[in-house]
């Protein structure tokens, strides 16, 4: 099989496993959404306005659509070219069977521009961090700064390091109390007291 023949292969990776191509489409879709929103921006109330309030957002939206599609096209073309280059070689077959294998960075087949390979995040750790952050934000005002920060830091540090309970508790107490005292009493920035409202 020659390189030319491989260009016609129906099994070449186009979007599957090609993160940049998908990212380009997401950017373009955001551009379309932004363009619709920009078109619906009210006109200026002044008669002599040269630049309407929706003009710049519309230009930016068009730019996003064009650049997003360009990224998709660029990464698909590069993916095809890469497949052409490796055709006939065992490495090429392996790469087609498992696109992630040829993309250790997980950053898409092409277009990452030489970005350094980044280790894949653990989904469970990421979800735990996200859940902790959302919980922290939701409880900041009702529970108050000290209590919510204490819980956030203690639960987070226990999740990552179960062996040092005392150290984790001390860190959570010192951090939450210390920041509260500095901000409330030294800087005059009043943080939500919540359940610790009895403090002076």
């Amino acid at each position, binding site marked *: 099989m020659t390189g030319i023949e491989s260009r016609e292969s129906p099994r070449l990776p186009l979007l599957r496993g090609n993160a940049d191509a998908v990212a380009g489409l997401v950017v373009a879709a955001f551009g379309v959404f932004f363009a619709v929103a920009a078109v619906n921006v009210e*006109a200026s109330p002044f008669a002599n306005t040269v630049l309407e309030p929706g003009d710049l957002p519309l230009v930016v939206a068009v730019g996003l659509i064009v650049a997003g599609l360009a990224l998709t096209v660029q990464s698909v073309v590069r993916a095809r070219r890469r497949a052409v280059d490796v055709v006939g070689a065992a490495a090429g077959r392996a790469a087609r069977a498992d696109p992630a294998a040829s993309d250790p960075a*997980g950053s898409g087949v092409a277009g*990452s521009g030489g970005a350094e390979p980044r280790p894949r995040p653990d989904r469970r750790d990421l979800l735990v961090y996200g859940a902790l952050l959302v919980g922290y934000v939701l409880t900041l005002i009702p529970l108050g700064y000290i209590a919510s920060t204490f819980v956030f830091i203690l639960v987070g540090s226990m999740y990552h390091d179960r062996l040092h309970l005392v150290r984790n508790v001390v860190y959570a107490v010192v951090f939450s109390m210390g920041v509260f005292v500095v901000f409330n009493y030294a800087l005059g920035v009043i943080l939500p007291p919540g359940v610790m409202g009895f403090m002076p």
Partner: protein
Amino acid sequence: MTDILGDLATGFGHALTPANIGWVLLGVLVGTVVGVLPGLGSITAIALLIPVAFGLDPLSGLIMLCGVYFGSQYGSSTTAILVQTPGDMGSVVTTIDGHEMAKGGRAGPALATAAIGSFLAGTLSVVALTFLSPWLADAALQLGAAEYFLLMLLALLLVSTLTTGSSLKAVISALIGLALATVGINPGSGVPRLTFGSLELSSGFDFALVAISIFAVAEAARVLSVRGRSAEKREVGRIWMSKEDWRRSAGPWGRGSVVGFVIGVMPGIGPSLASYVSYILEKTVNRKHRREFGKGAIEGVAGPEAANNAGVGGALVPMFTLGIPGSSTTALLLFVFTMYGLQPGPQLLETNSTLVFGIIASLYIGNVALLALNLPLVGLFAQLLRIPTPHLYLGVTAFAVLGVYVLKFSQFDLYVMIAFGVLGFLIARYGFSAATLVLGMVLGPLLEQNLERALNISGGDPAVFVERPISRVLVVLIVVVLLVPLLSLLARRRRDRRPLVDAAAPGSERAEKKE
């Protein structure tokens, strides 16, 4: 010249009293400490000490606040280097190579080059402020709205095309930044834009909120979600700079000082752009270590940090001489001047030269104080990396939440922070540029304001952008910046295609081997 030296001597006479030295030291210290806290940049630091300043005489108060301004600029670079959390716009670029150096066990040299660069650039910019102010103010006034628009467009294009990684992704990042900048009430018409009926969005997205979320929250999520990485110990490495570090930093310090000062002088732009331009300049001129940029090149810290601090000195030029603030922080300082009953501008130098030169003299002292206070602390700051990773990044997240909350004491802002945190995580994960996004966001309003002003002056005639020689030069530069990557891409494609064609050609050696 003799007059200036005489005035400066008088200024030193007033500034070098024990009380004023104490105020400048307090200002530098508070500025550094507040600057180190994520989200609390120079504006917050100055705002915090304004009540103290009002209890003092104008010279002492302004001396202290200028010390805060310099100190906070340095402080924000510390967190940018150690935990990839810039305190303000000027240190966003420092996160790129500074944090990579810290990850590689070179936090000490990164902090030291930032401190020394800040001192040298800060001092040089004050020397320039002393002697070149009137001349530079005249030059800055030569630029009209059209030139400022083109200048910002050029800066945005340069950053997009010359940053590390994919240019297309950098362009997309800049466009997303511009898109975010358009959210809120349009200042020209008072019309709400892209707020989707939300009252909270009518004031737009705060820069500090976006920067904290995109850098700090996203970095914390990234570090804490990598198995094994969160438990590993981070290396502090050597604290002081090696001979090689000194040699490699010297040029960037000098270039950064000049670039930072010149850009800082431009009214409305301020020091925020200076560090970006310096980074691009270093990457362009440094052929030997170009590949290291983005992976921990010391030049990528030395240049932008020097430019950032030189920009602070530069931004004071239009404030003192024209009464025009060069940045939001100098706008706040301008407010302090007026609260003392002083009107910065051409008259100030004539009517109150003692005060002006007293402040200028205090800036020299402030720079020395900054170095004396911070250089010994480099080792201490670097020790922060010894904190176990989960504790460090949970603390960073807690500071991020705090920083966003105290901006407006709004729960809504915290939800926006989470959304931008997700965006920042995806940006880093898929090789887009967070620094370019932030630049787009900061330049967006200025870009639109100057575009609108230029078109209003010309009655909507776009010829205003090519009418004057300065704008013509800028247009040519923009075209060059746009064309160069396209041409190099075409040339590369041609070069890449040749072997393929050779391989596919019947009878060619490579084709035969494949067969």
